């Protein structure tokens, strides 16, 4: 079982010390064996038989736990959410990012999921902006400035995928702090650090930097790729962020996507204030104009700033000429559901299911598929606590993660009003 282990490499390089560190000299058969790790998808059951890991129930259990933890924060008080976020993603590209415990390497896995995250982020937070920072050779570089276009971020990141040297948390924090300190006070300053290394090699006292970040209300979150590091935990605790360590690739994906919905606003920071925004009109298809963002002449598309009439290519953004925040109304509407999340559905307990006196609906209210026989596996359905309709697990996930409306409650509301007028 251990032969296929990727760490075998070290053993080999040790035997012939002259070509040290050449990791790619595995035989082809060995590589497929090591890459696929087929043994990891097997587990032993009670009788000692090997079975494939049943991922669906596991996945659902994880999802339920997440929903519950989210709602436990939300239901206690009406939490104000930071809808206008200014997020910097810090990607650690130090030597440790080349490690191959994630396939093909940590760096590639991180890049892949950062791409997905960026798209998801703009989908969920249309009013927010994002920037990228990398750490390499102990120095932090700003890859892209804060901006609202997913494409430019993804392109910049994919072009720069190589790693070397030490990692420095302090340098990265200092750099990001410099940028985020300038943004207006209504925006939420956030940093998400994807950390491969196990240590940080800093020029000064990192604890001071952490205090500085805390003072300027930066919420720093870290996702580690290998193990829990004290300083990261400390950073997250101090600044109110979350710290998590990925077990494997799918877990990493889950963890990074958890950062897509807006976090609760920091209490003393959450003063209601009015923000001036412009809702530009889409320009006519055939018109030709020089856009202010790329300084290129473009035919059609684009939007015109209502205040200075400059042309911009994409929304949301900030007008280059007059500095007005430009968005469209669908963007605002899409941010709305974060403020009024639907309550998590309750699991229907097996005792209710087995009770012959209770007449339960036979099919899911959402997709109209009939529930499987509740004989062998209990609790395969959930119920909305408001409208008492039953749903299957797939619909449960779909409603909470994509639809953000309960079909039961909605139809109830619609059917109720005609009845009221009839009587």
């Amino acid at each position, binding site marked *: 079982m251990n032969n296929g*282990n990727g760490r075998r490499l070290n*053993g080999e390089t040790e035997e012939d010390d002259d070509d040290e560190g050449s990791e790619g000299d595995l035989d082809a058969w060995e590589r497929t064996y090591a890459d696929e790790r087929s043994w990891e998808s097997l587990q032993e059951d009670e009788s000692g038989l090997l079975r494939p890991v049943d991922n669906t129930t596991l996945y659902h259990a994880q999802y339920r736990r997440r929903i519950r933890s989210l709602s436990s924060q939300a239901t206690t008080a009406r939490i104000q959410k930071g809808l206008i976020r200014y997020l910097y993603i810090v990607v650690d590209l130090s030597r440790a990012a080349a490690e191959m415990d994630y396939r093909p390497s940590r760096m590639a896995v991180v890049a892949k999921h950062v791409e997905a995250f960026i798209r998801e982020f703009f989908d969920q937070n249309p009013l927010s902006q994002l920037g990228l920072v990398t750490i390499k050779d102990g120095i932090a570089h700003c890859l892209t400035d804060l901006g609202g276009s997913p494409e430019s971020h993804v392109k910049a990141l994919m072009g720069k995928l190589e790693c070397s040297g030490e990692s420095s948390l302090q340098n990265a924090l200092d750099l990001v702090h410099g940028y985020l300190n300038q943004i207006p006070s209504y925006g939420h300053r956030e940093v998400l650090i994807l950390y491969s290394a*196990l240590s*940080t090699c800093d020029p000064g006292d990192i604890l001071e930097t952490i205090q500085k970040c805390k003072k300027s209300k930066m919420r720093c979150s870290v996702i580690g790729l*290998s193990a829990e590091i004290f300083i990261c935990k400390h950073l997250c605790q101090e600044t109110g962020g979350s710290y998590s360590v990925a*077990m494997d690739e799918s877990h990493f994906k889950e963890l990074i996507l958890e950062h897509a919905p807006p976090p609760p606003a920091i209490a003393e920071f959450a003063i209601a204030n009015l923000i001036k925004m412009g809702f530009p009109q889409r320009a006519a298809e055939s018109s030709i104009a020089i856009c202010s963002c790329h300084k290129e002449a473009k035919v059609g598309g684009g939007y015109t700033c209502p205040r200075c009439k400059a042309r911009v290519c994409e929304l949301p953004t900030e007008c280059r000429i007059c500095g007005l925040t430009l968005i469209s109304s669908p963007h605002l509407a899409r941010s709305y559901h974060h403020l009024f999340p639907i309550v998590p559905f309750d699991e229907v307990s097996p005792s209710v299911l087995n009770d012959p006196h209770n007449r339960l609906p036979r099919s899911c209210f959402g997709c109209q598929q009939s529930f499987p026989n509740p004989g062998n596996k209990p609790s395969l359905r959930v119920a909305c606590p408001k409208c008492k309709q039953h749903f299957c697990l797939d619909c449960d996930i779909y409603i909470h993660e994509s639809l953000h409306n309960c079909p039961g409650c909605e139809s109830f509301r619609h059917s109720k009003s005609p009845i009221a007028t009839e009587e």
Partner: protein
Amino acid sequence: MKFQIEDVTVYFPYDHIYPEQYAYMVELKRALDARGHCLLEMPTGTGKTIALLSLITSYTLSKPNNPVKLIYCTRTVHEMEKTLAELKLLHAYQTIHIGDRARILAVGLSSRKNLCVNSRVLAAENRDSVDASCRRLTASWVRAAAVANPNLPTCEFFEEYEKAGSNAVLPPGVYTLQDLRAYGKEKGWCPYFLARHMVQFANVVVYSYQYLLDPKVAGHLKGPEGISIKCVRRLRRRFKATDAGRLRAEYNRLVEGLAQRGNLPFTDNWLSNPALPDDILKEAVPGNIRRAEHFLHVLRRLVQYLEGRLETDNVEKEGPVGFVASINTHAGIDQKTLKFCYDRLHSLMLTLEITDTDEFLHIQTICDFATLVGTYTRGFSIIIEPFDERMPHIPDPVLQLSCHDASLAIKPVFDRFQSVVITSGTLSPIDLYPRLLNFHPVVSRSFTMSLTRDCICPMVLTRGSDQLPVSTKFDMRSDLGVVRNYGRLLLEMASVVPDGIVCFFVSYSYMDGIVNSWNENGILKEIMQHKLVFIETQDVVETTLALDNYRKACDCGRGAIFFSVARGKVAEGIDFDRHYGRLVIMFGVPFQYTLSKILLARLEYLRDTFQIKEGDFLTFDALRQAAQCVGRVIRSKADYGMMIFADKRYSRHDKRSKLPGWILSHLRDAHLNLSTDMALHIAREFLRKMAQPYDRAGGSGRKTLLSQEDVEKMGDGILNEMQY
């Protein structure tokens, strides 16, 4: 929470209790019922202290006609403070529940250095000089002189305390050292003397075990004290300046026997020494040393004799009987005279009104030595080594009186108290202790830790990644392959383990050697890319500095490795909990230096007296040390850590089985006989798993936190489960 253990209602200050704490209390209660001694082993971080305190105080409450006085001995002042703080919490809880009936008096007693509030005295740098400067201000003759001459300095706190007389008592409550100082300052009473006075009335006393064990024997037990020629010479000069007049007065007192000691001013009495046989107190001081000048002659002859013995070229070993006989023939001092040296010196020092006792430490050492040699005929031996074995060309004669029998020191304790509870995280194998200490416990149990997750991960590593065995066995330790494999192990581990790593080596010389060769190989440099390296040295100041910097490096995320030595200062008392120690590597089996004369003498004694085989004792001792070392990394249930035993000998059953139960129960078969790459894989998985958020109360199945209802429901089922 409040629950019933048989006929005792236990008040426990927390809402939840660990199952092993409950089991611990049950066993402890049975031992108290049986009025016998007991040995209880429970891993660190499971709350032994609070379990013990709450059971014993509750036991007293339930049986008011049988008051129990608890004397809790700790090793360090820090532990003492922690214990008292726990007791305070417990006391507050009990007072809420049963009101005034729960009233107790608990005091901590420590040396003057920790309790003194007089700023002039505290200015002295070490313990002995604080003692001496206190005595300079408070000794009865100094105070008597101060009455006549008000310019003489006295301690105002002590004066106030004396003035208050019998009114100077502490109201009931729990007093930490800090509280005592604060109370003393407020009232203007000396906290040290107040605490010493209150010890007689207190229900709970917390102090260092040194108060309980005879300081003379204890000193020799721990590290046999060396007497070198230089000290002896310096002492002799001291004697010459003595005061004839006062000596004569003292002689008159001594004629009436040692019982006269009671007539000396009360404030100056010494804590009575428990290890001396009773008859010595009843007997009178022999006539030939009653006169001070005679006593000085005796001492001078004794010192001369010792000096003569030290001028030898060979290592000599002798039993006390032979030694005493040879003193008698060469110096003309008989056994009885020797036996009284200790008391006679004390009496002399009181008479001479010597306050700077720290200056006389050396002569006290000699007198202690003489008394011990005179008192005990077995269990000790005298070893004279003309030079240090490492440097045979430099003459450095040392005379050691080494005690082979730990039971001698602790015997008076067992005799004096109804129940002696010995409890620790590492007592395995638990059946050897009663034999070594020569007593019969009514209860001896080892408890495992109930965990919500497998937060310790012991591994036995027997091979390097090239599959060659690794060991610190004498014939293998200098093998380049072994050295390199150990180096690679550390290097690989440094690249996957975050924050702090602690390494223990078998000895200073081995550590020096291996670190040197790692340096030559360039391995050390590679390690430094991942983590900073700190090394323990024999210099205490240097080591403390290294430890501070190690902690700093762990705190700021740089990561660090600490190289330390089993049986060293670091292995004994310094914790590497949380991120300060995510991994501990034990390089080799820390056997004692088997060529040491003292060890050989002790082994021989153990074989002859207790029928303990040499091999058994050595293995027991080595494995206990190893467990002690690796146990440093985990101090609570929320913590986690890995332990690597890197030696092929650990995979043998006779060695491994001597580890404590709480380590063995986590040592799975799959983690035995590992090679470096396999260990690395396990480490990665373990660290990832431990970094996940977890549920403290324990989810399904295993309950690790019991609420009040759980405890009430629970029968004996859980007890059987916990016992190991």
